[in-house]
């Protein structure tokens, strides 16, 4: 076999310590996405708001992320799909940092990005286009997602579950939010740790299903890991014969049942 398709894209990682102004985060993502990954942004580095458009796929799919500096410590994020429909239907998802400075872990790939604000209570946002192997991207349509939260329109830190996201379901008229990541747990709807019987860590793709019985796809360059891994912990994972990837736990909380023992990790190396 080869490296699984959801782990085979380019990726970028940056950890920026003591960020005191969210414009720094925006400029970092300009570098990660535009300079290093061929995203486009009409305003250039330093713009506010900053519009980041991922590379258009062969089937015409893309999404656009608008980062807005609401204040020095509050970053607003909206994401729209290639039809111009708002994905994170809160209109105004927000990520906060501390006035005294916060470490920001920043992840990007051609199909998505993730911002993890490593506060005492971490705040995390991710969005993107799912990997649909073995199907072709865009058949029958693209599957976009954006995480639910971390902060809603009113600024409350409410929906940070690793499995919650905005998606456009079958027969839907807009993106709706729910717990759509798939668990490695039995039908009895208990949560299972991602541990072996002897306690070794087990990882799994973050698979997404929002039409009953159908698998829409997987998040790119991300894995589901056990909740016993603390925030910002790293784990080295074999991804092919003789090939490893390093993944870092981001700030989402563990999921809702049956994912109550699972967290999200994004690739750093």
């Amino acid at each position, binding site marked *: *076999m080869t490296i699984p398709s959801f782990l085979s894209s380019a990726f970028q990682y940056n950890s920026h310590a003591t960020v005191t102004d969210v414009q720094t985060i925006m400029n970092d993502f300009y570098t990660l996405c535009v300079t290093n990954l061929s995203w486009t942004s009409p305003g250039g580095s330093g713009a506010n708001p900053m519009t980041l458009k991922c590379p258009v796929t062969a089937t015409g799919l893309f999404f656009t992320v608008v980062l807005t500096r609401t204040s020095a410590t509050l970053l607003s994020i909206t994401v729209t799909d290639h039809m111009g429909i708002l994905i994170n239907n809160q209109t105004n998802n927000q990520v906060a940092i501390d006035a005294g400075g916060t470490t920001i872990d920043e992840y990007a790939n051609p199909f998505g990005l993730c911002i993890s604000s490593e506060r005492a209570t971490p705040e995390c946002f991710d969005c993107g286009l799912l990997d649909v192997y073995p199907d072709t991207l865009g058949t029958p349509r693209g599957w976009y997602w954006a995480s639910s939260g971390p902060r809603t329109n009113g600024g409350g830190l409410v929906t940070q579950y690793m499995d919650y996201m905005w998606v456009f379901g079958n027969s839907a008229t807009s993106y709706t939010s729910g717990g759509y990541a798939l668990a490695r747990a039995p039908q009895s709807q208990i949560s299972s740790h991602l541990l072996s019987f002897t306690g070794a860590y087990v990882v799994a793709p973050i698979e997404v299903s*929002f039409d009953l019985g159908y698998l829409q796809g997987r998040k790119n360059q991300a894995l589901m890991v056990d909740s016993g891994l603390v925030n910002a912990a790293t784990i080295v994972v074999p991804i092919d014969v003789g090939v490893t990837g390093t993944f870092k736990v981001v700030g989402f909380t563990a999921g809702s049942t049956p994912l109550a023992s699972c967290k999200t990790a994004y690739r750093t190396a």
Partner: protein
Amino acid sequence: MTAPAFLTSSFYYYIDYGVSSMETVLNDIVAALALNSPGWTVTDNRPGTDSVTCVSPVDSSVTPHRFFTCVFSNVSGHSNLWLQCVTTDQNGVTLGTFVIEGTASNTWIMRYFTGQFHIIVDIEKDSAASEALVAGILDLSPEAQSAHSHYCYCHGSRNSSGALANNNLWFASMVDNVTVTDSNRVVSYNNSYSYGNPQATLRSPAGSFIFKPVIHVATNTLNTVSQAGRRYQQLLGSSNLTTEGGTLVVPTDIGSTGTFMMVGGLVSTAGATLFARVA
């Protein structure tokens, strides 16, 4: 990569048509296991006792040595229509006693999915729903196969009293921390969205069929629900794929495929069904 470890063990498929007696089934089991390589140790206890004792090939490459034992019996008093299987692990711990029942009104198609680490006896009756017995050893990779000793499992359509009980593919009996439990433990790939209406996600919206390992969870020595291992030469697939006895070719590595057959017994629920390797 190479083919996953749980798809690299030996396997042998055997079928018999027009069967009407569990005595014939015992004969079939002896015949099927005799054609396995590495070989099982089969003791035919007849005529003294109407049973055969089947010990899987001992995997002495790891300590403790891995094997399991199935004693198949033609249960007396049931007109050759009850086949019982008692499974014990490598320590002699009884994991479960399960039964399948034939019908007197017609003959049956018997399918035997066997290998060094698994055995499935499946009865297709036409006049009634199919039933099955399963038993085997879990693949523990990437951990060493000696990482722990809680790797044997079994299940069946009927309990030891002959009543249909937990007759689905999600249940299996194995040793959790210290206690043998027949419980809902096969990973079903659900999410909170489908809570209360679990649906295995084994199709893509574009129409591709998706196969996944049959993973068991078990409560480990830390009293934590954990990933215990994968069944050898078995897959979960969509129940919309084919019908009982139908086969599908599944990629197992670059340039390599395996052929898997839908097992009829153990009721398919939530859109998923059990497939076992035949080629």
